[in-house]
């Protein structure tokens, strides 16, 4: 049987997925830290060890993501293309994909084969990306994993008067001193992000069904806020952070067949 690997070296985390035939046999995630080469090699090694597979048994390994060029692989593939293949594999009826990564948010339209037909990327601005969540988590002293559940408890979300992450940080501090609750501030932040992401979606025009991936998709507060502003339900993969790596593995399999 042939094994294929996809490694996604992102700005925050590095992920590796190994597939065999039509199944994900293993996936691993490690923090990217400051060394993409080390992170990429380590995460692949961890995945191989987990299923006791020698590296030479891999038929092909493709890389994607911010640090894709930093490790040796059979091919470097595009993140947006990878996401298209992965979401098509997980949800064949998906036609729009929102990928909320640490560095940028990307929205793409795909055809019935998961091939990208149009896309838009957030400009060089943190507000529409996962970085915004990290910044605000630090200001509010809330773990990223707790932000979503807290946001859902909000009764009166704060309306941010800015779409800039830097200004929003100081605005959040002002709101804390005014006595606003963390859940209302976080919910307001989610709404602000959702509005920014929704403007990207409008650029390429939403086509149902729509899936959401990336680290941002693990934040239930953000997903609910997006669903609200889009007036549409979203499909969330069970492991939204690994989809780019999965797509790279699927592209490797495609290349072999």
């Amino acid at each position: 049987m042939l094994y294929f690997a996809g490694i996604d070296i992102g700005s925050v985390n590095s992920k590796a997925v190994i597939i065999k035939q039509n199944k994900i046999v293993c996936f691993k995630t490690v923090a990217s830290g400051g060394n993409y080469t080390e992170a990429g090699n380590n995460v692949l090694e961890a995945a191989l060890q987990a299923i006791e597979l020698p590296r030479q048994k891999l038929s092909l390994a493709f890389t994607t993501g911010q640090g894709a060029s930093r490790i040796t692989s059979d091919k470097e593939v595009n993140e947006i293309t990878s996401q298209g293949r992965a979401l098509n594999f997980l949800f064949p009826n998906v036609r729009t994909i929102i990928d909320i990564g640490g560095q940028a948010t990307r929205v793409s339209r795909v055809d019935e084969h998961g091939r990208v037909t149009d896309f838009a990327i957030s400009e060089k601005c943190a507000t529409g990306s996962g970085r915004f969540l990290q910044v605000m988590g630090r200001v509010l002293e809330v773990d990223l994993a707790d932000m979503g559940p807290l946001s859902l408890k909000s009764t009166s979300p704060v309306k941010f008067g800015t779409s800039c992450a830097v200004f929003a940080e100081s605005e959040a501090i002002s709101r804390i001193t005014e006595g606003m609750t963390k859940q209302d501030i976080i919910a307001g932040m989610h709404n602000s992000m959702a509005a920014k992401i929704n403007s990207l979606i409008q650029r390429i025009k939403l086509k149902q069904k729509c899936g959401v991936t990336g680290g941002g998709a693990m934040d239930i507060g953000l997903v609910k806020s997006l669903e609200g502003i889009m007036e549409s339900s979203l499909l969330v993969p069970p492991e939204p952070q690994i989809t780019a790596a999965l797509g790279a593995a699927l592209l490797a399999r495609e290349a072999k067949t």
Partner: protein
Amino acid sequence: MAEQQKTKTTATKSTKTAGKVRPIVKKMYLRAQEAAAEGRPIAYGMVASQYEEILRAMDITPIWTENYAALTAAKQVAEPYITKAEAEGFSNVLCKYAMVGIGFDAIRAETGKIPEGAPDGGMAQPTMLLGSSAVCDPRFKWYQTLGRYMDTPIHCIDVVYPNSNHFTLEMRDYYVKYQTEQFKELVNFLEKTTGTKMDWERLDHIMDIADETIQVWWDAYQLRKATPCPMPSQDHFSCMVPAYYLLGEQEALDFYRELHDELKERVDNKVGAVENEKYRLLWGGGLPPWHTLSIFNYFESLGAVFTIETSYHPPEPLEPMGKDVHPLKRLSSRVVDRAMKAQARAKEGCGDSRVQQILDLLKEYNNVGMMMHQARSCRAMSLGQIHFKNMVQEHIKVPTMFMESDIVDVRDYSEAQTKMQVDAFVDAVESYAQSLN
């Protein structure tokens, strides 16, 4: 200490003729420096203001200040001028052409000499400033601002662009009359400032050369419809220089004759800009990122070639006017009739002249993708791009990429992000091309 290797950011050109533009640009600035040394009149001017031939007929040496800003960007030396303008209190979201120009003249005013290390010897001190309303407002506000740094006569003209689908012949005549008055006032200003009279016969002759130049340029670009495409956009962004900055000179006409011959030969021998042309693309809006034109070569490495562009596109030649028409009326008619021609085509098509141009160029040049450049500091050329794309997609679902950067300021550019976008875009173009087959 070992010298750090500089990364190449200029584009590798495809045609030999495009390679001849750089010496022409150098000569432009040298000419102005010589004029300054000899005490001859020098004008700061704005490209596409339609007064190029008037200056030429009166022996006024032009310095195209926007071109100089683009040159500093291409040479990766724009930043000191931009930061100087910022230090003078100008916002960093203003037009970066203007910021470079203002920074340059602020430094000159402060030091009493051309800034050290300025490319091509720098811009000579002008004896007059000629603003215009063509395209955007920095084109007259910039020169007004220069009053802080130099005491130089200034004149701004209005250049009409009738942008409506509801023309009548009566409206056309009104626009021509108004534009003629604008040119008359300009000539009066130039005569007063230089102390020399306009030679109308000479202007007429210069306009003949200009008209022929436009015709040859237009004909040359028709050859780019061939497959494989013989000339890519990075060559165009050089080859447009003689038409915009030397219009009316024999040298410009000779340049396009040479370009035409080269393109014809390439077409006859099926020599393409890309060895294995896979995708044909349209540069559908915005000025180019002068700081990193090498991005075009990245496209080429993926088998994609930009066959044509809406920016600096050669104007469609017009029927020649009779010899009894006054040269200023002839010049004005050219301005108005070009716009009216575009409007007439739009009227028969989608209704918007800018969108119609995109639709026509997609079809005529057999393009399967389009890129638009959203330049942060160039709102005039970036505004409405998403709307245009949406309008285009009502007719044809061509994949479109929006590149986000700037015309000059490399600080607004992310190489990694742009290349990632290009990769995804080319994938989308591939899917689209397959769907057409």
